[in-house]
């Protein structure tokens, strides 16, 4: 098997987020300390203990998707993916660039897509027996024909990548990572590996997710990990703060164009940053309420830093996973201290989830994009709602946005089910 070692840069960025529908809107609102969290409007949550989320507002899919017909097979996650990929591709100038379509790949992080109860309803209504109960035999005979023929295609996580590959005639490697909340960080890491080893020159990568659904709300509520601060939605997501009570579900997409460094240089592409390291590790004991040791998260960070060849002392910023769940923020803090020792107190650590909530499979991409933008602009976003110190979370969590010269930064993305990913970005100006 052939393996090269090439350098990889970010040459395009696209964002659909609770803070806006473009890279610039996202960044401006992020730095202006706006919150994307509000009451849920996508469905009626009356009576449910959690009624808040970070929704994408004002999104019109027809602005991004020319064929109205394709919308029928694109659920919201896919629409976000297509829209953000479009911005990223435009930003990188892919439209004008000349390249072999076999050298353009697509690698996304996605989740299993929640079945929409409303879409199943007509088939279920048709499948009730004489006793009024759901009858599987009847469903087979009379229910199935009531379903949309391409129904399955709306459930498959790899369809996000399929849609985007078709749009950009990307005939190179295609992969879809389904590792829960760490999916898009994993995907970006995998895309980095593919370009590095010579498998492609350009990859559209990132993640998209729309987890604000009745089923996900039920699940997270029963796991006891959702914030219930319904009366003050903007205050609900408060990573590392002593008063945090759980996470806020967010939705959106973060897409990046990764490109082989010389390829980008040759065509004069603008470079945001170089991606230099990727590490992953599984929690050795996990589960909500279970005892977890922070070492596996530390291992992911160490592996990414070692991979990048950067001394840990040159990491000037950490974009934390920090999702405002009491125990995960504590564990991440412990893991950072395990890696850096006393220097941990000198590194600014912030979580953008205070403003945009947890975008699940898309969250890692959002964190990485915020670093890429921070590097170019010389300022870092804050941890919104960080007000009261938790004795167990005692690092510098950046309560207000601040200017900072960053050489290298780490992006953390930890899945709730136990998969941890860290990525290292390097300031492209620094060489």
């Amino acid at each position, binding site marked *: *098997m052939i393996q090269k070692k090439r350098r990889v840069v970010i040459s395009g960025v696209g964002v659909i987020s609770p803070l806006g529908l473009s890279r610039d809107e996202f960044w401006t609102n992020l730095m202006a300390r706006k919150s994307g969290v509000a009451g849920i409007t996508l*469905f009626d949550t009356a009576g449910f203990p959690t009624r808040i989320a970070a929704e994408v507002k004002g999104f019109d899919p027809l602005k991004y998707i020319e064929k109205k017909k394709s919308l029928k097979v694109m659920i919201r996650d896919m629409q976000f993916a297509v829209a953000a990929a479009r911005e990223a591709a435009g930003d990188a100038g892919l439209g004008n660039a000349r390249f072999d379509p076999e050298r353009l790949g697509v690698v996304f992080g996605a989740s299993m897509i929640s079945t929409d109860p409303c879409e199943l309803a007509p088939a279920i209504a048709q499948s009730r027996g004489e006793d009024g109960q759901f009858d599987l035999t009847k469903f087979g005979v009379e229910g199935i024909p009531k*379903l949309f023929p391409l129904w399955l295609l709306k459930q498959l996580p790899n369809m996000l990548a*399929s849609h985007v590959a078709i749009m950009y005639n990307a005939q190179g*490697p295609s992969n879809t990572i389904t590792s829960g909340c760490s999916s898009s960080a994993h995907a970006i890491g995998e895309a980095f590996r593919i370009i590095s080893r010579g498998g492609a020159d350009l990859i559209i990568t990132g993640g998209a997710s729309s987890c604000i659904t009745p089923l996900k709300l039920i699940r997270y509520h*029963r796991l006891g990990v959702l914030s219930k601060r319904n009366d003050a939605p903007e205050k609900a997501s408060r990573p590392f703060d002593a008063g945090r009570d759980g996470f806020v579900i967010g939705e959106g997409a973060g897409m990046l164009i990764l490109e082989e460094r010389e390829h980008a240089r040759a065509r004069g592409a603008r470079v945001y940053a170089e991606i230099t390291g990727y590490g992953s590790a599984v929690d050795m004991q996990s589960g909500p309420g279970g005892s977890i040791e922070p070492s596996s998260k530390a*291992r992911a960070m160490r592996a990414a830093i070692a991979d990048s060849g950067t001394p840990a002392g040159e990491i000037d910023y950490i974009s934390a996973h920090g999702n405002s769940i009491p125990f995960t923020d504590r564990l991440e803090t412990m893991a950072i201290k395990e890696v850096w020792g006393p220097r941990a107190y000198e590194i600014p650590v912030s979580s953008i989830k205070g403003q945009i909530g947890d975008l699940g499979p898309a969250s890692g991409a959002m964190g990485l994009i915020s670093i890429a933008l921070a590097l170019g602009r010389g300022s870092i976003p804050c941890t919104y709602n960080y007000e009261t110190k938790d004795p167990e979370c005692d690092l510098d969590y950046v309560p207000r946005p601040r200017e900072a010269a960053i050489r290298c930064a780490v992006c953390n993305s930890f899945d709730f089910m136990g998969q941890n990913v860290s990525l290292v970005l390097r300031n492209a100006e620094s060489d």
Partner: protein
Amino acid sequence: MSGQRRVVITGIGLVTPLGIGIEQNWDSLVNGRSGISRLTHFNASGFPTRIAGQVKGFNARRMLGPRDDIDCLGAHSRFSLAAARLAHEDSGLGGCALKPERVGVYLGCGEGDPSFLWLARRISESLDADGGVFIPRFLSRGMEMLNPRKDIEYEPNKPVYHISNLFNAHGPNSNCLTACAASAQALGEAACTIVRGDAEVMFAGGAHSMIHPMGLAGFSLLNAISTRNDEPEKASRPFDQKRDGFVLSEGAGVLILEEESHAAHRGARIYGELLGYGCSSDAYRITDIHPDGRGAAQAMQNALNDARISPPQVGYINAHGTSTQINDRVETLAIKKVFGEHSRAVLISSTKSIMGHLIAAAGAVEAAVCLLAIGRGIIPPTINQEHPDPDCDLDYVPNKAREAKVDIALSNSFGFGGQNICLILSRYRG
């Protein structure tokens, strides 16, 4: 490339409709004994398709030993944990002092058991007068009735977590889900992880069961699965003119990939080498494969290039061969495109004719079949070849296994949505 790290396979774990472990599977494969039968996992009597390739005689407690989460685990976790244990035992790594950081897990697993009945009942309870769902009612009933511990086990990355914990694997990990290409892709990416130097040993493969009401309904709606309900054993008939769709199967294939010198040094039994990995994307339509086999051919060509071999060196192709009209015709076309004249000489078979389509798990199981064929000098047949299709006119090793000395085999896996993966496996030469 000299000095480059190589990847060999030192352990195989199989859980399929043909049996548990290598020997049960091999025996059915070489004898062409079908694993397809009437579907019994749930009451499918009203469904258009009522047959499947179910894993039989699988006792989770016996296969996995005592675990307090055994009743919550999804089929993907149960099957993959069993396959990983078999592969690990087979590899003899048990007595080997390995640094946990040098052992990783890369799987291509599908979802666990989606509780369709649970969902259907909650929807049914929440229907309003106009036939819509009254969501507040759905939310409150769902909240009362959900078992969250079981619900999270549905996630496709759960097997990675469980296997990493069982074998104390602290190294790199991932789970990809590229439909029917997933576990082949996982093998390819796991091999790259070793070549790059990030691990010495990788658990790689996948597990999946879509034999659930949603999977069966979804594939029925797409007209993708066979409805030959009265002759289950004849339903999967790749390349035969009377093929009418694939047969939904379930199971797991987990392989132990190991850095070559590490395996040689400890005197491991080596099944073969993973010599090449090629991927491509059709970028054509979400519902159809490219009619010229553009993506399929490109994946094969990329794998040949990666392995630095030429087509005549390939002795056996384990085809994707799903038994759908379009796949088998286009795959034949793609093989001709890449192999030219040699396409008439190379032996091709689709073992899906015997075990059905394991979806995300298919690629890993079929890569294992290639390694066994190389090692044992026998090519498993494509069964149910009765009516030749003029568009499918290559040597598919019809109906009877054939003795043949093969040094290099190629395995195709094409995912719904256009992801194409090709792996090249070879006899191990020191």
